[in-house]
């Protein structure tokens, strides 16, 4: 990117000292969480490709990416929110509630667009409620969204006793879940392309816009941000709403994949999402984190899960292993920080 070249010139101008650029790049790679994650992914890919003939096939990689797309899309929003020093525990319950609601809307209206808009709108409303309670009443977002976690789950159970089946038979609906945007030369499933689009949009927002910069400032020091004229509450509210709307988008993809809206969907989803964000290098203390880190962490966790299936290990480990990986990652991060003498 152009930002990269500008930085380099600035460094030369000010630092005056210029090391071997390649060594510098390597050092920078491993001075960041992203470097460690990339290394882990490459190692794991090599291992799995070696152990399982199925792993490195177009079909399996497509499945892997489709499976992670929902966690990834929500985790993109969650990254923004966690950088802004807030968190949202209600995204898992929203998978159920918004999924049920969207499927009911689709059945009633037989209109894909209306269904999607309703899903996103309900997501936005949940985000506004989270923001309003957190910022308006000054309660921590952990507590507020923990309450929403159970309220929204309860709403999902109340709105239907059983899974809401697909009764509308809109052809394009299933395509979103299981279809592909192109088949040649490689098959790219719709969820993957949606994930990629969301990633690119928010990558640019976070890196290139004043809003993105303000998210870091608000999370890094809210008082300093306010005294610099930054609308702290507005920035945080936007992050809450973005997170919930992306969770709603994930929920929509989920019902399209399952062909039904289930009121028990998304159990533990919030932990997968938050785990991926933290593994990606963000900190609950705010002001820190990148979308590349989050995406790499999501891929790593998804690959582990995929590998457990392929190697026919006890699939119960699929629940436990991500937790273990996060502990290891945080440990490595602490170690790295000690080496580079960076404070927590």
């Amino acid at each position, binding site marked *: 990117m152009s930002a990269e070249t500008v930085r380099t010139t600035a*460094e030369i*101008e000010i630092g005056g000292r210029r090391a071997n650029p390649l060594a510098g790049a390597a050092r920078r790679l491993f001075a960041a969480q992203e470097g460690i994650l990339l290394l882990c992914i490459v190692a794991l890919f090599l291992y799995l490709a070696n152990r399982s003939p199925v792993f490195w096939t177009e079909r399996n990689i497509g499945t892997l990416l489709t499976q992670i797309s929902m966690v990834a899309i929500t985790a993109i929003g969650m990254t923004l929110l966690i950088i802004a020093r807030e968190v949202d525990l209600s995204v898992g319950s929203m998978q159920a509630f918004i999924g049920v609601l969207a499927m009911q809307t689709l059945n009633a209206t037989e209109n894909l667009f209306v269904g999607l808009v309703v899903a996103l709108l309900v997501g936005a409303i949940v985000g506004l409620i989270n923001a309003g309670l957190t910022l308006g009443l000054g309660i921590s977002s952990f507590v507020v969204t923990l309450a929403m976690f159970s309220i929204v789950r309860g709403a999902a159970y109340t709105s239907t006793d059983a899974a809401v089946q697909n009764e509308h038979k809109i052809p394009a609906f299933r395509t979103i879940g299981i279809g592909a945007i192109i088949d040649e030369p490689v098959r790219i499933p719709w969820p993957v392309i949606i994930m990629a689009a969301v990633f690119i949009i928010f990558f640019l927002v976070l890196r290139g816009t004043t809003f993105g910069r303000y998210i*870091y400032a608000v999370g890094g*020091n809210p008082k300093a*941000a306010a005294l*610099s004229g930054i609308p702290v509450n507005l920035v945080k509210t936007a992050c809450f709403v973005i997170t919930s709307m992306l969770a709603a988008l994930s929920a929509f993809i989920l019902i399209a994949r399952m062909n039904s809206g289930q009121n028990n969907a998304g159990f533990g989803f919030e932990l997968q999402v938050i785990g991926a964000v933290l593994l990606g290098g963000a900190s609950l203390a705010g002001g820190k984190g990148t979308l590349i880190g989050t995406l790499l962490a999501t891929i790593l966790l998804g690959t582990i899960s995929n590998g457990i299936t392929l190697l026919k290990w006890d699939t119960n480990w699929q629940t436990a292993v991500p937790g273990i990986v996060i502990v290891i990652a945080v440990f490595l991060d602490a170690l790295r920080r000690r080496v580079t003498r960076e404070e927590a």
Partner: protein
Amino acid sequence: MMAETTTNATSPQTRAELGANGARPLLEMRGIRKVFPGVVALDDVDFDLLPGEVHALVGENGAGKSTLIKIIAGLYRRDGGTMRVDGEEVDFRSPADSIARRIKVVYQELDLVPGLSVAENVFLGGYPKTPRGLVDWPALRQQTVEVLSHLGLNIDPDRPVGELRVAEQQLVEIARAISRQAQILIMDEPTSALSPAEVEFLFGVIERLRQRGVGIIYVSHKLDEIYRIADRVTVFRDGKRVVTKAIKETTPHDLVAWMVGRELSEFFPKTPPQIGRPLLEVRNVSGSGVHDVSFTVHEGEVVGVFGLMGAGINTMGRVLFGASERTSGSVQLDGVEISPGSPADAIRKGLGLLTESRKDDGLVLPLPVKTNMTLASLSRFADFGWIRSRKETRAASDYVKRLAIKTPSLRQPVRFLSGGNQQKVLMARWMLLDLKVLILCEPTRGIDVGSKAEIYRLIDAMAHRGLGILFMSTEVPEILGISDRILVMREGRITAEFTRAEATHERLIAAAAVATNGDHAAASTHQGAASAAGARG
């Protein structure tokens, strides 16, 4: 000044005199050195404390008092020199080592557990036990009552500490020291939150401790207190010990001279001001901690606002800027009313505020130098929200050069910079905007002397370009050095105004000092002058 002639004197005769009762020093420190990146905090410092002595430590902010205390408390390790407690050489690696040597520090922020009772706090970490290993509650109560009565205190040992007044909490801390048989007690600004009656009581307690042979190191910049209770005084300046003397052999005037020491004229690059139209017009403003203030700052003018700690100078800055509540009055900038309670509005109209606590509400510590610099002016480098990175970087690197900010790169997280360079980053943040008036709250607080001089130079240069400057400070010399006009605050009100020509050290102090009880005017002014020179700890 006279400092030079007395520098070498640990004053042998004084030591001989005090040591005549045959007492061995409780604490002896020789050639103590402590270096922080870029700063020598303590340079070849000698210090000792005798049993039953109150030894006062005085000096300006950053002179080295707190570093010395932290070394004694085991919070810092010294880089050089020797330290003996009770004649034995010691090397404290942690506060626990210091406590084991029966040393107790009572900090300004008390470290009590608010939810526990007085008795539980006094013996925290060493409760009396029953034979079965359980806490012996009756014994705990009994022993607490004993300790409290030693101090002449009448506090219910079962009351939670959180319910006590600050003065009582402080006494509980001292009781804790006694419960551990502390022989060295260090008190850091113990009277800053106390009423006159509570101060009297505290002095009574100190006297009892002295009679029990406890050695007390007393840090304060209130010289009147020091003259009441201290036996000896040690003055620090710029990390060096200037002098140690029996208090009887000194006058408050000497102490101030030793504390301030340096030649100040060359320090302040004051050029003749070109004062223009009125820019900031403050009319009858009241708000949280500020009462009915009115004044005007003109184009190209530096208006100094002087006040002692707690006088409300920084609060006034926040109220004008909209960071604290404004209940009445009007603030106009170049004829435009600034809405209360909105820093964003103030910035848009051309008013900036540099706060006194740069790490708390100034810098975003984990973010890079560049980001911190452009935080308030970012929209100027953006088209429709998209940051023009090249433009931003050019502006930031320009200021790094102009202000001579020492940083390896613009991407360096600002937390790794020294205090002086951090402050310059914040100055750059406001210089990047085309402000009309900039409010600076204690901009030289806690930074090294070299950076101080550079900040003064910047202030002068900004005024020359037509900016109005409102400069808040608790330090008389810098107020006198750079202001064109000086306002003095006390208890949230403006009590006096001086032109540069009229202002003297004594006049500022007289207007700033709180009128104490029956002391006759001359004495209180004199002691006030001394305490203000050391104001800020």
